[in-house]
């Protein structure tokens, strides 16, 4: 990299240039698969620094990979073609809440959870709540258009972004959108940038919409003997006029794993369990819960266990929280997918997943955000077992295929990254992908920003090993 010195000179503090072997290997991974060592890691902390880096990189055709705290499950920040990883996690100084405008203005390294906490002090909330909210940066969430359990009622990250400051792939600084909720001026570049996985621009500031914080919540656990009934109950609840804030599902394998890991007295004979949360005014949600109870029982639920207080509420959610530690007890490698289907197709998706599990002989458990069809089929394997990993790769491919065939999508909240790009054409079609490619080429003619993501490279296939 002949422009190494020029790039390093952009950092005001030389401490924010990392190039030791230990450091380069420390920015070579995220929470997905694959190890790709960058040539250099820079930790920019201002728009000026970022723009200067991008200008140099664009002239010298050096790939840049923006990165938050590396919690990505799709390989978003991996340096697949070498070059420079830009670690934005130190740039967390700006977190302004403007309660009268109901907006937050933040720098890219701010933790997502911190925004909600800060908004909460003004009776407001920032709804997107990926499970990693306490770790992940807002910059990363914007890049991947993250979701979370509350997505059912409140939508995902892009539904709350109204304005951005962006460094373009040629190193210019632009602003999109603004501070108003209504804004129809020209093309909606804000929505284009959010979820573009760092391939079109680098977000250096975001203006986020906040909403009033609900005053109370109510939680219930509902076991079903028959998986299909649980799927029906999901639709019935929603059509009864009630929109829960969360509606999660755990299949029998998840229940068994958790119960074995820590006995909580879960109904392990059930084929599935729904965990749902209502939020709003206490009197309203009390009445709504009565409706939910009736609907669930009519749909074949065994019982509806409603938490009486905050402690019981935590107890009920504990089961969902323990799924991850419980399943990795079986085998260490966890491949977490986020294939998403239309709500009505959830039972059919479960059926297909069962077939995939048996066909490929993989350890598959399913849990996730049932309310919005965003399932998390998780395959538990051992990375060191090459033969098993090949079966897993095939099974994962089949999961994607099933989701798309049922009218769903490859990714509900994790993004495409390097993991799912080989399957893009299957979902959006040749022409669809070509339109996306044209946008990429127009924005980033030299393919400097996060190359190797979203768009498949010739002959690329899903790989889950590090060799």
């Amino acid at each position, binding site marked *: 990299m002949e422009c190494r010195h020029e790039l390093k000179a952009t950092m005001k503090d030389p401490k924010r240039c*990392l190039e*030791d*072997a*230990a*450091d380069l*290997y*420390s*920015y070579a*991974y*995220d*929470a997905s698969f694959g190890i790709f060592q960058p040539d250099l890691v820079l*930790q920019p902390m201002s728009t000026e620094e970022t723009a200067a880096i991008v200008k140099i990189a664009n002239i010298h055709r050096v790939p840049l990979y923006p990165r938050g*705290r*590396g*919690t990505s499950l799709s390989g978003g920040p991996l340096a697949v073609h070498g070059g420079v990883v830009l*670690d934005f*996690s*130190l740039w967390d100084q700006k977190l302004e809440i403007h309660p009268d405008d109901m907006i937050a203005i933040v720098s890219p390294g701010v*933790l997502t959870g911190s925004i909600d906490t800060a908004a909460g002090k003004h009776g407001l909330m920032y709804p997107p709540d990926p499970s*990693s909210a*306490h*770790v*992940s940066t807002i910059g990363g969430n914007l890049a991947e258009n993250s979701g979370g359990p509350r997505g059912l009622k409140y939508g995902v990250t892009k539904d709350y972004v109204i304005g951005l400051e962006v460094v373009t792939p040629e190193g210019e600084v632009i602003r999109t959108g603004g501070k108003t909720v209504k804004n129809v001026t020209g093309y909606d570049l804000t929505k284009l940038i959010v979820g573009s996985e760092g391939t079109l621009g680098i977000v250096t500031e975001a203006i986020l919409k906040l909403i009033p914080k609900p005053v109370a919540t109510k939680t219930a656990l509902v076991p079903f003997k028959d998986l299909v009934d649980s799927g029906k109950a999901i639709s019935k609840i929603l059509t009864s006029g009630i929109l829960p804030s969360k509606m999660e599902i755990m299949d029998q394998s998840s229940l068994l794993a958790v119960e074995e890991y820590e006995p909580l007295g879960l109904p392990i004979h059930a084929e599935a369990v729904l965990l749902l949360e209502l939020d709003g005014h206490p009197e309203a949600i009390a009445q709504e819960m009565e409706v939910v109870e009736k609907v669930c029982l009519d749909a074949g639920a065994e019982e509806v266990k409603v938490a009486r207080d905050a402690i019981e509420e935590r107890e009920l959610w504990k089961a969902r*929280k323990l799924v*991850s*530690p419980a399943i*990795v*007890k079986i085998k*260490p*490698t*966890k491949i977490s997918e986020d294939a998403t289907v239309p709500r009505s197709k959830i039972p059919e998706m479960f059926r297909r997943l069962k077939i995939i599990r048996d066909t490929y002989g993989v350890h598959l458990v399913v849990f996730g955000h049932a309310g919005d069809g965003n399932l998390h089929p998780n395959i538990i394997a*051992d*990375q*060191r077992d090459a033969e098993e990993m090949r079966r897993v790769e095939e099974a994962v491919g089949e999961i994607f295929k099933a989701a798309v065939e049922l009218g769903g999508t490859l990714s509900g909240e994790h993004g495409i990254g390097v993991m799912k790009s080989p399957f893009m054409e299957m979902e959006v079609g040749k022409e669809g992908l070509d339109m996306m490619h044209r946008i990429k080429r127009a924005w980033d003619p030299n393919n400097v920003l996060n190359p190797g993501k979203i768009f498949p490279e010739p002959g690329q296939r899903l790989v889950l090993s590090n060799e």
Partner: protein
Amino acid sequence: MSSTMDYTTSLAYDETFACVQCGYCLPSCPTYITMKKESHSPRGRINLVKMAAEGKISIDDLAGPMELCLGCRACEPACPTNVQYGKILESALSTVSAYRKEYETVKQKTIKKVLFHHVFPKRNVLGFIGSGLHWYQSWHLDDLVKKLNLTRVLPESMREMEAIMPEVLSGKRKEETTAVKEGETRFKVAFFTGCVMDTFFRKVNDLSMKLLTASGCEVHFIEEQTCCGALHQHSGERDKAKELAMANIEAFEQLDVDFVVNSIGGCGAAMVEYHHLFEPEDAWYDRAKQFALKSKDISTILHQVDLPFKEGAPLNVAYQPSCHLTNVQRVVDEPQELISKIPGVKFLPYPDMNMCCGSAGIYNLVHYEESMEILDMKMKNISSVHPDVILTSNPGCHLQMLLGVKREGLEGKVRVMHLVELLAESCNIQ
């Protein structure tokens, strides 16, 4: 440099696969927060151990990030997949230590031997050395620590430490100096004094035994006990740690007691994990496990008994929980509930209370600057609630808090005490 070692076996390579690299440990790690990069995070360190085992990086590359880990293990409770970070860290430190030994000079070896084999394990030697950290300088141990590559022991750290050293009580502890309650007792306990603790904070040990007696326990002191071995283990001297563990297990097996009680978060943590030093097939494993199960922090015992509290004056109290008490022994609620029981006391939680203070064994001596950054962060949080007293549960934290109070200019305004000292004071026990 080539080495004769097989790193896939000396490093806890298999354990690294339990890490799914989700990053949930990042916010819990003090060095990630202060050093601001991934290689100083738990996830980063686990990955580096894996990379070293696979030969992708050298042990030299691994050494820095591992040695700058405080070993506070706050990442363990934060981990959703229960990665055994402690085991991975220890394997890395002993691998680094063994690797260095291959290239150590005779002089370096001698110096290290003096420190770990003849100073820490011997209560009488520590007692003799006595007054504060004078020994460090008078024995030219500071020079030696530098040569050992324990890195950057600055004269400043020595001066600072010496300034806050408490007065040391001299003389050898004997069985007859401790109280044993006659007749019907609540628990029969043996008391573990610890080496550094009994040198610098003997009073805390004395008060601990008196408190236990006052609350109806039969308390025994066993003379054959020795250093717990924690410092050795954390410095990669695993064999010596094992030897000390065996000596302690043997010593405490002499007497059939309900518990082996200590007032030292760090030593307690080493002792509740004594069985980790042995392979399960080893005959010592079961004995170590038995000992580990009996080892209890004093707060968990005092929490179960009635203490003879007197009337109290209003006092605002902040608590610095030792990392090893919180994250390894998982003793969290008992000390806080005990504090709240003291008449007149208002317990003040403060932001990031469970974050390490930066003391971490001898970390504050060998990595002075890094330690002070962590301490300053801690003091900022503690100061925000304006306490009259800062309570500690470990001698390392205690000294660090004294230093913190000094750095903040709070001397004379904020007292630093061991939890046991305040409990004793509230019971009129001297």
